[in-house]
């Protein structure tokens, strides 16, 4: 492989030689599996020509736990504990589409209050997920300060989730037909109705104010930062048609200009009762993927406040049989998770365990565009793109 040497560099080396042909043999660079920017254990094998990327082959599977197989030996309530661990940054959100799929086959109507609690916690999970993104992404590009700001406020959000569910990362809080009474709830239906912890409204309001404030901090600290912009603006552009063909979803798809948000289209949770905007980018570059997430935090905080102020009263659980048996049938239920479209294709034969449960996780498809998107870019862009896709290896490997 040959390359014409950069005239500037050549002039620096020698004032005479300006058209030297240098032989630069191709090189294979191994990145990971242990690398801070790989969000877990992802290995990249990059074929390079100088600093240009000729081809990148992601090697995945280090986190493969075989959840689809394990689901075939577990009852439906037991699977909830598994799916929490798919995308552990937003564990709660993973439970929702599975619950809805089971409830759809069993034709269970979930009480309004339970739906509202699910919705609030899903949005809190989204905020928490995006705050992790806002802390890690600038860090990977060399800015350490935003991490402090974002993670500090994320702690408030995690405390809210913990206050309701008892768990920070793996709430395991949904039950088929509703949600579990909150930690400290009672055994009688009357006490159970007091499910959200005391002072939840005030605490949530305070936390949402802080979260919105940290978004403003991000705008002043990061969004206008020249180094950050130099690393992200116009880098690794993913056009809308490519994103769709690769199944790229969620904020990554919206950054490419596609105004598609399952919260507006599917009825897995009552999002139609609340006002919020679908945030889109224009260019589909790393900077847009960052900016979309900053704005989505604001929108999620808006939904949480609406939902919590108008939360309906009532039971937390629909009447369900003691032993969950799902009638024969198959369905696909998907939800707008923080990382994109998360869905479950559930095939039941009428028993207590699924016959087949296909898990469609967002990060898997989001990451699959990597070889295409990195072609022709330079090595530092690998880190810029990886960070901006906001994936988690548990969600890739399942």
């Amino acid at each position, binding site marked *: 492989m040959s390359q014409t040497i950069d005239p500037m560099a050549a002039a620096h080396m020698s004032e005479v030689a300006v058209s030297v042909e240098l032989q630069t043999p191709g090189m294979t660079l191994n990145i990971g599996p242990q690398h801070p920017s790989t969000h877990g254990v992802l290995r990249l094998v990059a074929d390079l020509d100088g600093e240009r990327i000729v081809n990148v082959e992601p090697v995945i*599977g280090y986190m*493969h736990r075989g959840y689809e*197989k394990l689901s*075939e*030996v*577990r*009852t439906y*309530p037991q699977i909830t*504990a598994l799916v929490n661990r798919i995308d552990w940054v937003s564990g709660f959100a993973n439970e929702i589409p599975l619950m809805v799929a089971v409830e*759809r086959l069993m034709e269970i109507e979930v009480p309004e209050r339970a739906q509202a609690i699910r919705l609030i916690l899903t949005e809190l999970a989204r905020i928490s997920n995006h705050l992790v993104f806002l802390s890690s992404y600038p860090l990977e590009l060399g800015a350490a300060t935003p991490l402090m700001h974002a993670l500090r406020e994320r702690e408030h959000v995690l405390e809210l989730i913990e206050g309701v*569910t*008892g*768990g920070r990362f793996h*709430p*395991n*809080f949904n*039950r*088929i037909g*509703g949600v*579990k*009474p909150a*930690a400290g709830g009672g055994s009688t239906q009357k006490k159970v109705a007091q499910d959200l912890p005391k002072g939840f409204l005030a605490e949530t309001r305070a936390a949402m104010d802080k979260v919105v404030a940290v978004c403003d901090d991000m705008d002043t600290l990061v969004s206008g930062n020249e180094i950050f912009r130099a690393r992200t603006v116009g880098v690794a552009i993913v056009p*809308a048609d*490519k994103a*769709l*063909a*690769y*199944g790229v979803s969620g904020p990554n*798809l919206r950054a490419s200009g*596609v105004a*598609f948000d399952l919260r507006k*289209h*599917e009825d897995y949770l*009552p*999002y139609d009762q609340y006002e919020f905007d*679908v*945030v*889109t980018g224009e260019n589909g570059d790393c900077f847009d993927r960052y900016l979309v997430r900053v*704005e989505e935090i604001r929108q999620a905080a808006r939904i949480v406040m609406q939902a919590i102020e108008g939360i309906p009263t009532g039971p937390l*659980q629909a009447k369900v049989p003691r*032993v*969950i048996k799902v009638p024969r049938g*198959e*369905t*696909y*239920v*998907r939800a707008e998770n923080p990382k994109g479209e998360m*869905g479950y*294709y559930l095939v039941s*034969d009428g*028993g*207590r*365990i699924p*016959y087949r449960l*296909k898990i*469609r996780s967002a990060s*898997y*498809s989001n990451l*699959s*565009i990597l070889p295409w998107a990195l072609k022709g870019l330079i090595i530092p862009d690998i880190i810029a793109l990886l960070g901006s896709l906001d994936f988690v290896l548990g969600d890739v490997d399942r």
Partner: protein
Amino acid sequence: MTTSPPDDPAGVGEQEPTTDTTAELAARAAESAGAESWSADFGSAKIKVSPSSWVEAVRSVRDELGLPFFSFLSAIDWSNEVAVGEPLEETVEERYEVLVRLSSDRTSDGVTVSTNIPKDDARLPTLVDVFGGANWHEREAAEMFGIEFVGHPNLTKLYLTDEFEGYPLRKTFPLLSREIKPWPGMVDVEDMPSTENAEGAAAASVAPPGDVQEQAMPQGDTTKGDEDGVEGADA
């Protein structure tokens, strides 16, 4: 910054309108793909095509119905003999069913295109030329079910190591750790007392849906109770 499109189906109606549009969608997809049959059960439109028209069918559903989003590709092993889980109640024709889910980028429309392939000749042309995203999904289906996607540029193992033998998601593939030691949670799957008189230990060990909650409460009132139980028993 955009707001939601006007044709927001959520909340327009609960049951009937959704079912109708899903059925209409499935019928339209079936017509454009020349499908053998279609269904719209439980809000999911699905069409069944023959393996010989697989690529053309997927392509025409994508283009004619405007479903450019590649959601996933996977397979189901329809098997009368199972090494894990519960066997099917009725005997089925032994086959692999390959599914691909396409959806719209503007509405809630989505269609599952499926085809049956025989187990002794598990081959299907690749969809890589139709959807770039099919590349990884087909590699996964190939290593998990042993299906060959003809024309795939790089049909190597994705998750599993190169030395791995067998196809883990086949129903006849045993779950080895469970062969060695029965899983403690299995009591919930197998030796369940009848629904009417499920009292005491067995009922309490089930993750509590609904009424069972009252009985489960005294056993462990921390929310991590059932998780710890499973992991503790494993150790």
